């Protein structure tokens, strides 16, 4: 039972990463009394990310100081519904964040929108390739919202994040210099693109020679000093190479801590409570209305925080778990395919190609920035003809040199011994002359890839862990092998001494030991139909309308782009609907 009950508030926010901080700012601006609960500790650029202590690969990237504490709570993982799931005990495949700023404090900074076609993926493929093109068991869906509806909120997120990039299409007019395939933008990026490192220059040149369309990666790593609409300031990125996994000591990488919290902290109607772990959302007797949340504070006391509005804005899978633990919505049942909460859990699908050059080509991989580089979208989304290829999805390809650090190790040509004199010579010969490029692919959703509560394992508070049922499927391996083939051609055209390719083979299973993005999506997906989605287009629970579930948990499938920009736009879109419609007339924003 709850030990204490603080004063009821208008809105309680669960999780203080990007989604939570955006909603907190918007609702506070609307005049609501807002309390945000973050289970991790309080963090800020100073003292937590101060130079030089944050430049510590062992503490941050390897031991995951900014990641979730797996000894308190983790997930269990299995490949198929018949398997027994086992706990994820060491960081590998994904690194969920923890603490004020969440994963938004330790992300890299790649800041994309989404392609207009991918927002209506199923409809688009069925229209272009016919009803039978999407295979049985692939449960991809439309988002239920259009690019034009989201555009003002993509724009707002970029201005808040201080994103560096180059527009190509402004209101339908091709201005050039940016991504040939992008949807129309209402304006330029707030900052010009970051400078190219040499490896990005090489990639852009080779891509152009092959007839592709390179563009500067949109990066929430500031290319110059910047002041955002909240008055929060950013310093320019110095390409130190410590972004992903680290906090930024230069105030250069956009984060909730740098870009939102300074202004939010000054507002008297906002309170942030760190070390506050939410156990569940409380519902009234009808089960149709949330009354607030119960959380455990730093002293281990259970506290009930009453609120008229509950925002779930934790990491993707924590949103799903909280819905399941609280009885919000109908849990997904893999046998019948019915129910929505936990449905369409998806990921991303990467391949990597490395080129090793001679001593005259200096790529200096210690220089880097988390979001910068050069990319092509020629094989992303539906920018190429999928008809003869027989798969759904695609990959942007890029050189995103983000700083090769010592423990992560040096990439060396295949066949190099792992130790000894020959290894040392190869390390000396190739470290500063290696170029690495990625195919950063989509991952479709499938009937038997889902999230539910584990029947065996429990967390430190005695609650069931979340269980992932997930594996790679033929469609996605076909896609990544095709695109990695194209990427390999680009790198080979640079005439390196050697190229090495890392790509999934048919029959490969999901291996949790290998890192490949933390871009988990789905499980509380958005859509137009309450039978097939957990939340409506405004990310409002169909079942408990005073609960909004903000995050990449809303994506019906995994896209090739990094999800943060899309997630932030959805957060602003949802907040706008709450401010303009919901607060005037609390209830379902989309009639059922």
């Amino acid at each position, binding site marked *: 039972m709850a030990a204490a009950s603080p004063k009821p508030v208008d809105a309680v926010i669960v999780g203080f990463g990007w989604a939570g901080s955006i909603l907190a700012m918007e609702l506070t601006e609307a005049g609501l009394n807002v309390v945000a609960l973050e289970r991790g500790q309080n963090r800020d650029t100073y003292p937590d990310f101060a130079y*030089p202590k944050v430049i510590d690969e062992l503490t941050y990237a390897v031991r995951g100081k900014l990641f979730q504490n797996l000894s308190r709570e983790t997930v269990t993982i299995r490949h198929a519904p018949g398997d027994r799931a086992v706990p994820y005990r060491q960081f590998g495949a994904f690194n969920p964040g923890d603490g004020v700023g969440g994963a938004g404090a330790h992300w890299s900074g790649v800041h994309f929108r989404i392609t207009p076609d991918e927002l209506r993926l199923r409809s688009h493929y069925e229209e272009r390739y016919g009803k039978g093109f999407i295979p049985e068991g692939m449960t991809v869906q439309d988002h239920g919202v259009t690019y034009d509806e989201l555009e003002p909120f993509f724009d707002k997120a970029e201005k808040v994040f201080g994103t560096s990039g180059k527009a190509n299409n402004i209101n339908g007019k091709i201005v050039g210099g940016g991504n040939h395939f992008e949807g129309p933008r209402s304006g330029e990026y707030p900052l010009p693109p970051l400078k190219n490192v040499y490896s990005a220059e090489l990639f852009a040149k080779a891509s152009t020679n092959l007839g592709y369309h390179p563009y500067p990666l949109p990066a929430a790593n500031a290319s110059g000093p910047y002041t955002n609409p909240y*008055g929060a300031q950013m310093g320019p990125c110095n390409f130190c190479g410590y972004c992903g996994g680290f906090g930024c000591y230069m105030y250069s990488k956009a984060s909730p801590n740098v870009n939102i919290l300074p202004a939010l902290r000054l507002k008297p109607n906002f309170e942030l409570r760190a070390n506050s772990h939410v156990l569940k959302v409380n519902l009234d007797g009808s089960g149709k209305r949330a009354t607030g949340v119960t959380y455990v504070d730093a002293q281990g006391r259970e506290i009930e925080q009453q609120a008229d509005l509950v925002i779930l804005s934790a990491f993707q899978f924590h949103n799903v778990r909280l819905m399941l633990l609280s009885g919000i919505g109908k849990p997904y049942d893999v046998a019948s395919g019915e129910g929505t909460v936990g449905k369409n859990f998806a990921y991303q699908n990467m391949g990597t190609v490395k080129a090793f050059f001679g001593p005259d080509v200096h790529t200096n991989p210690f220089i880097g920035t988390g979001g910068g580089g050069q990319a092509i979208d020629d094989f992303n989304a539906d920018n190429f003809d999928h008809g003869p290829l027989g798969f759904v999805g695609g990959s942007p390809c890029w050189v995103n040199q983000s700083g090769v650090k010592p423990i992560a190790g040096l990439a060396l040509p295949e066949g190099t011994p792992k130790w000894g004199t020959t290894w040392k010579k190869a390390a000396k010969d190739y470290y500063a002359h290696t170029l690495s490029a990625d195919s950063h692919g989509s991952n479709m959703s499938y009937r038997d890839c889902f999230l539910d509560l584990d029947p065996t394992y429990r967390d430190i508070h005695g609650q069931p862990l979340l269980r992932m049922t997930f594996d790679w499927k033929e469609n996605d391996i076909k896609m990544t092998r095709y695109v990695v083939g194209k990427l390999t051609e680009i790198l080979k055209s640079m005439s390196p001494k050697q190229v090495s390719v890392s790509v999934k083979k048919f029959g490969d299973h999901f291996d949790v030991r290998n890192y490949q993005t933390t871009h988990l999506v789905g499980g509380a997906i958005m859509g137009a139909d309450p039978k097939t989605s957990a939340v409506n287009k405004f990310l409002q629970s169909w079942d408990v309308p005073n609960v909004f579930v903000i995050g990449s948990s809303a994506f019906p499938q995994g896209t090739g782009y990094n999800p943060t920009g899309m997630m932030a736009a959805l957060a602003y879109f949802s907040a706008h609907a709450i401010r303009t419609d919901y607060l005037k007339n609390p209830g379902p924003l989309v009639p059922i």
Partner: protein
Amino acid sequence: MSRAPSPKKARTALLAAGLLSASPALAQTSPADDIQRGAYLARAGDCVACHTTPGGKDMAGGLPFALPFGTIYSTNITPDAKTGIGTYRFEDFDRAMRKGVAADGRHLYPAMPYPSFAKLTEADMRALYAYFLKGVAPVDQPNRKNGVIWPLSMRWPLAIWDAGFAGKPFEADRTKDADWNRGAYLVEGLGHCGACHTPRGIGDQEKALDDRGALFLAGGPVVDGWIAPSLRGEAGTGLAGWNQQEIARLLKTGRTDHAAVFGSMTDVVRHSTQYLSDGDLQAIAKYLKSLPPTEDAPLARPVVADRTAAALRAGDLGRPGAAAYVDSCAACHRTDGMGYVGVFPRLAGNPAVLQKDPTALISVVLKGSTLPATAAAPSSFTMPPFGDRLSDQDAADIVNLIRNSWGNQAPPITDRDVKSVRGHMG
């Protein structure tokens, strides 16, 4: 801020009344207006800074001041009848503010800048009185006993001090315009800028209380490892290189395109100047810009040929401090010492760097500095402390490099100077 009365209107009113220094016409103010105006004036006077402990109740006193003659504590100035100033009549309040004599006849220590507050107009004093008696929440918190050692604990000699160094009501300079006079009134009066920025005499008194004194705001003594620089027109060490807009912006936001506040001024911006109206800030800046350099100061900084930036960029790190500067300073302040506009301060030509007394610069290097979060500029950028990473010699080398590169010229320092500042850090 919204609580601020329109200063433009105020000045128009006082011009009409022919009273350059006075506030809006007395007859037109209601008690509620007085409280609101008093709240604004209390901001301008930064009363909360000294009369509130960190985490304590506003204006309830108790903040310690370690002075050469012992520790004294600020007092409870809430309207609590028992422990505060709830029983004060206006005359008592006025006497304490102007003459440093409490209602019970005790002489206050001149840590309370009553010689400056003596400049206040009666209207402003009445507004402040209204605010403190009706606009501040009463707090029952007894005053702490001062730890001043005998014979200095005897208060009667203070009366003699008061007689010698007492302040006088503000007199407008009719050769100057209303803005200048408003600025002078705020700087010399409530703002009590001279408390830190004016050199002190043998009796610890400020050597001048207004612009008629050539040493007024000419730079203060070292306090807590910080030193308040000259606000007069010296080249390099003073405000010669600053324009009026920059001064106003620094007071509003704690930062300009090329500089940032540090040390005690951080709290002044946080608690006081950020709340002043733009008109008052411009008036203050205008007044400060009118103060000529002290007599012995050069009119312009000499132009010095300098190769530091080129050497650092070329990887020539032979000069003492160069390698440490590149490692720990250059990411933000850059190899050319120019910083980044709006975010990381410029070191080239920065008055805080060029002070003859290096204490403040050494303190920043050792202790770091955090910008105040202000409504107009909420980011509290922090330079981390480097004291735990640098030996006294390392820090001295860096400070010497900064003080003598990119056109900067300032007297050299030694590791002993660093050691001395470090010693005061506790």
